[in-house]
C-alpha cells in the first residue's frame, strides 16, 4: 500500500529543515505575543526574558509555562492576540472542573485546522471518495467540527451525525455505506453493542477504518474495537487549547505512536514536578507551543497528558516525531494509599481477562483514614455462570491481577449489565468520593 500524504513535502522533510522552520516561526510567535498580549508580556518580564533572547529551539526553555489556570484567569477572551472582529469562531471546554476555557480561531486558523485534520485523515488511509461517519459531538466541543472540516477539506463525503441516537446511526452507517468512523473509542464500543442488539453484522457494513480519540484507551480496547466493528482502529490526539483534534495522529503503517504535526505544534516532554525538559525518549508531561495559530496562540502549554516522544523513523516515511499513546494524566492519576493508579491501567488488567467487557468504573472512597478502591465490572453472558463459585473466582482473579499489576488492593463488585452509564461522549470511569 502506498502512503498517502496531504502535504508530502513538509511531512517528510529532513529534521534539520523542519527545525529551521520551527525556529523561524517560534521567533515570530514570541515577538507577536510579547507585543500583543499583556499577560504574556508580564510573565516574560517577570522571568527576565525578551523576544530577542530566543535564538535557538533550546531557548524555548527560557520561556515561562502557560497553565489552564492562565486561560481561566483571562476568561473569556483575554489571551486572544487579535481583535474579535478577526475571530470567526470560538469553542469552549465543558468547564466541569470550574470556569470553562474558551478558544478562538481566525479564518486562517480554521484553514490550518482543516489542513492538519486532512493530514490526520490521510494518516489513517482515508481519501476523497470515503464516506466519513462523524460521531464526535458537534457544538462547543472541538471534536465534531474539527473532524468535519478536515474531512471536507480532504474531499470526503461527511455525515455530520454527531453523538447519540445510536440505532439511527447504525441504520445510516448501513444505508449510506460509511467507510470511516470518527468517534470516541467508548462510543465505538457502544455502537458495537447496539449492532449486536439490532442483529446487524459488522461484516456486512463498509467500515474500513476508525479514527478514535478524545479519551484515553488501551491497546486491548483497540483490539476489542477492531474485532467487534471489523475495522482498523487508529488513534488521534488533540486538545481544544492547542487547536482541537489534529495535533497528532497515528498512521496505519506505524507500530504505535502518533505523528505530531510539529511544523505547527512544537512538543516538549518535561518533568511535571520540576518543569525540566527531559531527554528524548523519556516519559513525562507533554507541553505544546503553537507556532502558527493566530487568534489564540499558546506558549509552552502544560497539557497534563503523560507521553513520550519517539524520534525513530516510521515505516510511513513521515519524519514528524511520534508521541506515545497518552498513558495517563498528571491530574486524573489517583493516589490510593500512596500508590499511583491510572484508570487506563485498571482497564488494561480487565481487558486481559478472558470474556471481561470494557464496561467498568472505579469508585474511590475514604473509610476512616484509609482509601478504598472498588472496581465495578459488568457481568456479560461471556463470563456469567450459574455457579457462585465461578463468579467469585472471577472477582478474586480481577482483584489479584490488579494487585499484581498496580500494587494496590481493591474490592471488585460484579454488577448487572447496563448499570454502568454508557457514554455518548467521554466515559466517566472514576468516581472519587474522598473528602480531602
Amino acid at each position: 500500500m502506498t502512503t498517502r500524504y496531504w502535504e508530502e513535502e513538509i511531512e517528510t522533510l529532513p529534521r534539520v529543515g523542519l527545525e529551521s522552520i520551527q525556529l523561524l516561526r517560534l521567533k515570530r510567535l514570541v515577538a507577536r505575543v510579547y507585543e500583543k498580549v499583556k499577560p504574556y508580556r508580564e510573565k516574560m518580564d517577570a522571568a527576565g526574558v525578551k523576544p530577542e533572547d530566543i535564538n535557538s529551539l533550546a531557548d524555548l526553555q527560557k520561556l515561562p509555562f502557560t497553565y489552564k489556570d492562565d486561560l481561566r484567569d483571562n476568561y473569556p477572551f483575554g489571551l486572544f492576540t487579535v481583535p474579535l472582529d478577526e475571530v470567526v469562531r470560538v469553542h469552549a471546554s465543558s468547564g466541569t472542573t470550574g470556569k470553562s476555557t474558551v478558544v478562538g480561531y481566525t479564518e486562517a486558523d480554521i484553514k490550518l485546522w482543516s489542513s492538519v485534520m486532512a493530514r490526520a485523515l490521510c494518516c489513517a488511509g482515508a481519501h476523497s471518495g470515503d464516506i466519513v461517519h462523524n460521531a464526535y459531538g458537534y457544538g462547543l466541543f472541538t471534536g465534531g467540527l474539527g473532524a468535519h472540516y478536515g474531512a471536507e477539506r480532504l474531499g470526503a463525503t461527511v455525515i455530520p451525525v454527531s453523538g447519540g441516537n445510536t440505532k439511527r446511526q447504525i441504520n445510516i452507517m448501513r444505508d449510506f455505506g460509511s467507510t470511516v468512523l470518527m468517534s470516541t473509542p467508548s462510543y465505538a464500543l457502544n455502537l458495537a453493542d447496539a449492532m449486536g442488539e439490532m442483529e446487524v453484522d459488522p461484516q456486512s457494513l463498509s467500515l474500513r477504518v476508525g479514527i478514535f480519540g478524545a479519551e484515553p484507551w488501551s491497546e486491548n480496547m483497540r483490539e476489542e474495537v477492531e474485532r467487534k466493528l471489523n475495522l482498523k482502529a487508529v488513534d488521534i490526539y488533540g486538545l481544544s487549547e492547542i487547536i482541537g483534534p489534529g495535533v497528532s495522529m497515528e498512521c496505519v503503517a506505524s507500530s504505535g505512536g502518533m505523528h505530531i504535526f510539529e511544523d505547527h505544534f512544537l512538543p516538549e516532554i518535561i518533568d511535571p514536578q520540576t518543569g525540566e525538559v527531559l531527554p528524548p525518549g523519556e516519559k513525562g508531561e507533554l507541553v505544546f507551543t503553537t507556532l502558527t495559530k493566530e487568534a489564540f496562540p499558546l506558549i509552552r502549554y502544560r497539557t497534563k497528558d503523560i507521553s513520550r516522544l519517539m524520534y525513530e523513523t516510521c515505516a510511513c516515511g513521515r519524519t514528524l516525531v511520534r508521541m506515545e499513546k497518552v498513558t495517563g494524566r498528571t491530574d486524573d492519576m489517583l493516589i490510593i494509599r500512596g500508590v499511583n493508579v491510572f484508570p487506563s491501567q485498571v482497564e488494561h488488567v480487565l481487558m486481559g481477562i478472558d470474556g471481561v467487557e470494557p464496561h467498568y468504573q472505579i469508585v474511590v472512597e475514604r473509610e476512616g483514614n484509609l482509601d478504598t478502591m472498588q472496581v465495578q465490572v459488568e457481568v456479560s453472558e461471556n463470563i456469567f455462570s450459574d455457579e457462585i463459585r465461578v463468579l467469585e473466582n472471577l472477582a478474586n482473579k480481577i482483584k489479584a491481577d490488579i494487585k499484581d499489576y498496580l500494587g494496590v488492593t481493591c474490592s471488585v463488585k460484579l454488577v448487572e449489565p447496563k448499570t454502568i452509564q454508557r457514554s455518548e461522549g467521554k466515559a466517566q470511569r472514576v468516581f472519587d468520593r474522598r473528602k480531602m
Partner: protein
Amino acid sequence: MRVEQIAVFLENKSGRLAEITSIIAEEGVNIRALSVADTADFGILRLIVDNVDKAQNALKEKGFTVGKTNVLAVEVSDKVGGLAKVLRSIEGAGLNVEYMYAFVNKSGENAVLIFRFEDMDKAIDSLMAEGYTLLTGEQICSL
C-alpha cells in the same frame, strides 16, 4: 434426561426478584421451581420454567444477563428419609454436587430434587443404575 434451567445474574438490590418474576409472568410463562444463591454482593436466580426460550428472551431484552444450563430432576417419594437416601447414593457413586434444590409437586406424593453435578454424564448413569426416575422438562411441567 436433562432438564433445561435458566440462571439470571442479580445484584443485591431491592425489587430485583419482583421485577424478574413480573417479566416472566407477562410472557405467560409458568415457574415450576426456583432457588436463589447469594453472596454479600450478588446473587444467582435459578429457574425451571415451562417455556425456557420465551423466558430467556424476555429477560435478555430487559437487559439481564441470562444463562442456560442442564440440570437433573430426580423424583423421589415424599417420605421421611427420601432425600437422605438419594444423597447417600450420590456419595456412594463419588459424584460432586455443585448445587441442589427441591420442590414438592401438587399431589404431594412425590418430591422433585434438582441437581447440578460436576460430571453430569456419570451422574445420569449412576442414578439410572440405582433405579431412580429422572424426569424430563416436559414431565416437570405437566406435574
